[in-house]
């Protein structure tokens, strides 16, 4: 059986606002196994990034409070670790890349200095060896003139180039898990494909698991083995990508798929989901999707649990599923 790399169990997060606190994440459970590529999909505001960043304890502690739950990464209880221990794990055992490659590198330091700094932080390599390692990482990312790139400042490079540098750097210490937060959203479509390919290739090579966060179902469907669909801070559906997208159980997932351009019949208008994601300060009682859902009924005024469905890891948080079971 494969080892579990990341296990988030029943995580709830809140943050303070004018007059009180609001819940940003509600009882989210998810896990990632060795070498697996797992996606988190949802609209903006579904707290998918917040969830992922919490796994690395990257959120500023003063703005977010963990109300309940456990996070286990490589057997370590991430909520109990000291900041020092956390820092030594970040970049070595678990790495992260972000959406905005243009601003993700220090603008006043050369690429080489930034890469070498990270590599030498986690390894015992000499200056020269670290340099060779950096060049290898960049070359693996299909950067031809790697040696020259090391001498450049970030603002001299394109967005796609910078993202490839960041991905290369993320793989520097062969991490067990890579968290990728919309890594291709800011890139051109052509560059997007290439970057995803490089990402998958390198991950397979190093047996690195990827937690891939995206709002783009099309990208996720090609890239991920397994999916979590998030809505307004909760996981609403999960399962193997094929099954979640092929036979969605939750009305929200179904609506997301209907809203895809590909699923509209020729000549038919696109079907967007009516309404908007509810404001965190003003959530409906019960199921968060209730007010936008076409199949809502009385039971929906209570919060639905995640109903386990038959096959492996398949689950959906909708009262309809319970009905189905009962029937």
């Amino acid at each position, binding site marked *: 059986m494969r080892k579990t790399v990341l296990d988030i169990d029943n995580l709830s997060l*809140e943050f303070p606002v*004018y*007059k*009180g*606190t*609001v*819940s940003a994440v509600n009882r989210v459970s998810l896990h990632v196994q060795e070498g697996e590529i797992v996606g988190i999909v949802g609209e903006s505001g579904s707290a998918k990034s917040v969830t992922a960043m919490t796994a690395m304890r990257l959120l500023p502690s003063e703005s977010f409070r963990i109300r309940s739950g456990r996070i286990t990464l490589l057997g370590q209880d991430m909520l109990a670790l000291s900041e020092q221990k956390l820092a030594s794990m970040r970049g070595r055992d678990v790495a992260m890349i972000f959406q905005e490659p243009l601003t993700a590198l220090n603008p006043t330091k050369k690429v080489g200095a930034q890469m070498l700094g990270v590599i030498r932080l986690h390894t015992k390599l000499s200056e020269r060896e670290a340099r060779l390692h950096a060049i290898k990482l960049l070359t693996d990312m299909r950067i031809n003139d790697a040696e020259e790139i090391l001498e450049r400042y970030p603002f001299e490079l394109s967005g796609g180039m910078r993202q490839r540098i960041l991905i290369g750097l993320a793989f520097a210490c062969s991490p067990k898990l890579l968290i990728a937060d919309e890594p291709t959203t800011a890139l051109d479509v052509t560059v997007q494909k290439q970057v995803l390919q490089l990402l998958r290739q390198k991950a397979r090579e190093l047996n690195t698991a990827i937690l891939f966060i995206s709002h783009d179902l099309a990208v996720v469907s090609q890239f991920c083995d397994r999916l979590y669909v998030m809505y307004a801070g909760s996981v609403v559906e999960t399962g193997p990508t094929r099954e979640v997208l092929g036979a969605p159980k939750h009305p929200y997932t179904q609506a997301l798929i209907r809203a895809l351009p590909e699923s509209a019949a020729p000549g038919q208008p696109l079907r967007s989901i009516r309404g908007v994601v509810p404001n965190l300060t003003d959530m409906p009682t019960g199921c968060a999707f209730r007010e936008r859902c076409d199949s809502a009924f009385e039971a929906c005024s209570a919060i639905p649990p995640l109903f386990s469905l038959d096959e492996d890891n398949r689950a959906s948080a909708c009262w309809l599923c319970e009905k189905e079971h009962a029937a």
Partner: protein
Amino acid sequence: MAEAQSTAKRSRFDFGYFGYQLKRSPLTMVGLIMVVLVLIVVIFAPVFATHDPNAIDLRARLAPPSMAHFFGTDEVGRDIYSRILFGGRQSIAVGFFVVFLAGLTGTVLGALSGLIGGRTDTVIMRLMDVVLSVPSLALILALAAALGPSLVNAALAIAIVRIPFYVRLVRGQALIVREMAYVKAAHTFRAGRLHILRWHILPNTLSPVIVQGTLDLGSTILLASALSFIGLGAQQPTAEWGAMVATGRNYILDQWWYSGFPGFAILFTATGFNLFGDGVRDMLDPRQKAR
């Protein structure tokens, strides 16, 4: 749940969002309290004063602080405590006078500059550039010296130097507002420039001008007292804080209280206005608030 809890904890005095911001920023609260305190004391100076601020008592010259004279007396036996209370009227009046004058002139010039544009704009802005290119203190000294020593002239000098800041502020706003759809619509309905100025530009510039003004109050009070200290502001026998520190300087080694208390009054007042001004800016400036 969280909602209910916070509602229960809400105090009877609910200042809404303003109150919430104040609570989050204790320094602003402290500043507000200091400002209110100073204003009360200064407005009701006759009530709080124990002596006539200008009453000379040659038997009690340079007396140390005591129950009879809280902050001691000066070289002709005037009560320093009472003089500080009345002296505050000068300092605070100067502060508001400068901010009002500079704010008003700056707003008018800035609005004209932004609204009319073209040559008027160029002339006004070049003029402001020249004023800004001179370090403000040098210009204030030159102006105040030329106008002659008096508190009003010192205030005028400070006001003139502060005008360009308001002009830039208002002009920037006017340029933005001018491009807004509803103003363009007003234009097509042949609304006059005055109408646009009155109904669209002025309301939009009011809040940044007030923020700038609040921020300016503290430094103006400080600057005016400094000018008085070097003899360019209030003249004898007017009770004014800077001037009192200056005369007290002659007795500083033996009668520290003479300069000490008026100087502390300046520090207290300027700190209060600066703390409050910073707080008001943080509340109204969305960029700052986002941090």
